[in-house]
Each structure stands twice: as structure tokens, then as C-alpha cells.
């Protein structure tokens, strides 16, 4: 029998025997960033289309989730850094080649934008809210007048945020599992799905719930389509990518991926949403929690499995 035995003297912590440099912080942030992107995208979209009053939750209530998610995500990102006191170096340069640099600057734009959006709608949550200083009122009045422009900026920047969470991985050719541009749209779709799930959960209006259930169904369809294409691409590619795909097609990550992400995170909530649209009584929290869980698991599994995939030499 032909055999190949490779012995390496290298044993660097977190690198050998298998790369495990990114832990829970990165996938958690990618989930929260995607969720915030999804929520802000719909808020901006329905503002631009003048449907603020039809989809009140999406435009005025759900966006409150975004700054909270982003701040927790930023804390997770900060915890991930090994040279923490130098984090400000991110903001002394712009590097167009580096997805991480794009992400840092996008967050610099989206986080304050989401807070501004919430400040504009704070009376929806707290009707008696009153700003203490007149200058804040003046500033908010200015943005209220130019809300459409603000919505356009938010629409574009939230889409960039949603896509970048996937591009962050796909830009690494060293990890064959990540090296597919499908991850960008897939993570964006997953973020939009999570965003619409949150809106279904928070909404008290039947028409709005129905609208977002339909939207979510459509997005889940797109996600399944993208996943199938991702595997088709891998299997038609080089040996390293075939082996990367095999992590999910019989390898170590097969069960968690197909059970947690595809079945529990996409197919079951889709069936429940269809039944709901057909007037069956199903507690709305079940599909919502499943979608959020699936979205989180997608990030975790891709992050961990990607680090297990490598070039052969």
C-alpha cells in the first residue's frame, strides 16, 4: 500500500495541529452584524418606499435591535484582538485590499447611523421621551427633514455590512472552504432572514407579520439555492475544495451543518411560516427563534470548519 507520512516539527499554539485562531468572538460578531444589517436594511427600504405607516415595526421599532447588536458585536471583536491597545490603528489607514479594513470603516459609519435612526424614533418606544438640550432637537429635526437621504445611506451601508461579513471569510484563499464568493450573498441573505424574523416577532400588526413571513420564506428559498450552488462550485473545483466540501458531505461537520443550519434553521421555520400563512395557530416565537439559531449556527460552523480546511502539501 502506498503511504505518505508527514511529520512536522512545528507546534505553535493555536496554529498546530489544526488552525484554531478564531474562536466564538468572530462568528458571534458576524451573526450580530448580519442581524443589524438585516433590520436596518428593511427599515431603510420601507422608508424609501413611503411605507413607514404600513410597516411601523420594521421602520420604527425593530431598528432598536441594531445598535444593541452592533455594540455587543464590537465588544466581541475587541475581545478577539490579541494586541488590544493598538486597536485604533484600524482608523489611521484605509486599505482597500483588506476586508477587515472595509469592515472597520463600515462599522464606523453604520453604528452611529443606527443610533441616529433610533434617536429619530425614540418616541415610538418611550412616548414621554424629551431631549434635554435644544441642540439635539435641532440636529434631529434636520435629519428628520432629510430622512430619505439618510435612508438611502443606510440601505447601501447595511447591504455592505451584510455582504462584508461573508467576504471577510471568502477573501482567504488559504482556507479552501471559505474561498468562495457565494459566502457574501449567503451571509447577507442569512442576515436579512434574521432581520425579518426579529420584525415578525416584534410586530403586533397582522398584515406586517404576514408580509415579513412571506419575505422570510423567499429569503430562505434564496439561501437554500445559494447553499446548493456553493457545494456545486466546490465539487467542480480543485482537490482542496472538494475536500473542504467533504467536511459537510460525510466529514466532521456534516451533522451539525445539515441538522442545525439547514433543517432547524431553514426548512422547519419555512414549513411553520407556510402553515401560519395558511391560518394554522403556531406560536410565532418558534420559527423566529429557529431562524435566529440557524443564522448563528451558520456563522459558527463556517468559521470553525473553514479553519479545519487547508491546502495539501
Amino acid at each position, binding site marked *: 500500500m502506498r503511504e505518505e507520512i508527514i511529520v512536522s516539527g512545528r507546534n505553535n499554539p493555536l496554529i498546530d495541529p489544526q488552525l484554531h485562531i478564531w474562536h466564538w468572538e468572530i462568528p458571534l460578531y458576524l451573526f450580530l452584524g448580519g442581524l443589524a444589517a438585516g433590520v436596518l436594511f428593511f427599515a431603510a427600504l420601507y422608508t424609501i418606499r413611503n411605507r413607514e405607516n404600513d410597516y411601523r415595526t420594521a421602520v420604527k421599532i425593530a431598528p432598536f435591535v441594531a445598535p444593541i447588536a452592533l455594540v455587543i458585536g464590537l465588544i466581541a471583536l475587541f475581545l478577539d484582538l*490579541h494586541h488590544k491597545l493598538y486597536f485604533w490603528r484600524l482608523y489611521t489607514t484605509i486599505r482597500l485590499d483588506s476586508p477587515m479594513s472595509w469592515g472597520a470603516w463600515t462599522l464606523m459609519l453604520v453604528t452611529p447611523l443606527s443610533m441616529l435612526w433610533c434617536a429619530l424614533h425614540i418616541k415610538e418606544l418611550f412616548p414621554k421621551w424629551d431631549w434635554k438640550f435644544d441642540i439635539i432637537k435641532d440636529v434631529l429635526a434636520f435629519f428628520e427633514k432629510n430622512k430619505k437621504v439618510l435612508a438611502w445611506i443606510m440601505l447601501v451601508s447595511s447591504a455592505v455590512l451584510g455582504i462584508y461579513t461573508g467576504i471577510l471569510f471568502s477573501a482567504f484563499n488559504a482556507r479552501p472552504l471559505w474561498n468562495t464568493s457565494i459566502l457574501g450573498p449567503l451571509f447577507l441573505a442569512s442576515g436579512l432572514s434574521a432581520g425579518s424574523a426579529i420584525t415578525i416577532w416584534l410586530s403586533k400588526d397582522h398584515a406586517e407579520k404576514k408580509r415579513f413571513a412571506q419575505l422570510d420564506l423567499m429569503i430562505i428559498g434564496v439561501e437554500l439555492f445559494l447553499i446548493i450552488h456553493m457545494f456545486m462550485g466546490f465539487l467542480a473545483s480543485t482537490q482542496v475544495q472538494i475536500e473542504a466540501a467533504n467536511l459537510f458531505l460525510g466529514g466532521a461537520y456534516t451533522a451539525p451543518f445539515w441538522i442545525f443550519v439547514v433543517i432547524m434553521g431553514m426548512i422547519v421555520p419555512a414549513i411553520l411560516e407556510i402553515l401560519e400563512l395558511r391560518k394554522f395557530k403556531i406560536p410565532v416565537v418558534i420559527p423566529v427563534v429557529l431562524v435566529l439559531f440557524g443564522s448563528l449556527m451558520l456563522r459558527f460552523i463556517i468559521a470553525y470548519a473553514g479553519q479545519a480546511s487547508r491546502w495539501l502539501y
Partner: protein
Amino acid sequence: MRYAMAIDTKKCVGCSDCVVACQTENDVPIGYCRDWVVEVMDGTYPQLELEIRSERCNHCENSPCVRCCPTGASHYNEGGIVLVEKNKCIGCSACITSCPYDARFVHPEGYVDKCTFCLHRVKKGMQPSCVAVCPTKCMYFGDLDDPRSDVSMVLKKRKWKTLIPEAGTKPHLYFLI
């Protein structure tokens, strides 16, 4: 100027002197290494072939680590040597995940560390410590643009390969076969 290194896999005996020399010269923390020895045994018994390689950062011409660094800490220095400026490094590990050779690690102080081709020695006209110490003289270092440098001469004479050239990195570490 393009610095490169050639390692003769037929002469290397895998003694790891290069590893120890590097650790001593560069004060590499205990438990870490910037260079390492890989032994590959291939074939059907008794027709076995053994290849021994002293590996390190490939100082790629198209470095994924330089490309993905969000702060510019990873950069090309003199002669294309890829270095990390530790006061710019935030320890985000993007470069570590981007390296197909897994040549980088996080230094216990938080910044990312790797082989420097001993630029501090090279600037003084000396060889990198791993090359200087090799008891079988299996390593060659020099400038690819100078046709009379050790590395250019040996690459002209001998058959060689680079590691995973299909990753598109244009590595500057050559293995004589």
C-alpha cells in the same frame, strides 16, 4: 532586489539546528518557532522516499497576509522581505488565517510574529542565522536579481520546486529536489 532562500532537500538531515539558531538569534518565545523541519515519507515499502524540508515564511511576492492586513502592519520591506511592524499590529489574526503555509503565530505579547529572513543580519552583510548555522550547508540565501548570488547560481544548476505555487502566492522559498 528580491531576497530568496533555497534549501537542498537532498542534503538536509533534519537536525533542527536552523530551528534552534533562529530561536536563539531572534529571542523566539519558548514553545514557538519561526522555522521548522518537515519530513515527508512517501511510497510503498520497501521503495520509500524521504524528503526533509526546513520550512519558514515564504516571503511571497503576492502575499495574502500583506493584502488582508487592515492596518498595514504586515508590509514588504527591503528586498521584498515580508515583515510585521509590531506597533501597528492589532492582533486580529487575519494574516494568520490568510497564510496557506501557516507560517505566522501570535507572539505572547499580542502582536503577530514570523520569520524575518534575519533582515537585521542581512543588512550587515551577514547570512540569516539558520543559513549560517546549517552543518550540512544545505541552505542558500541571496538576491534573485543578482545572477551571481548563491541562490541564483544554485537555482540555475539544480531542479527545484516551491510549495503550493497554485495558491498564487509566488513564494520566495525554493526547495532543491
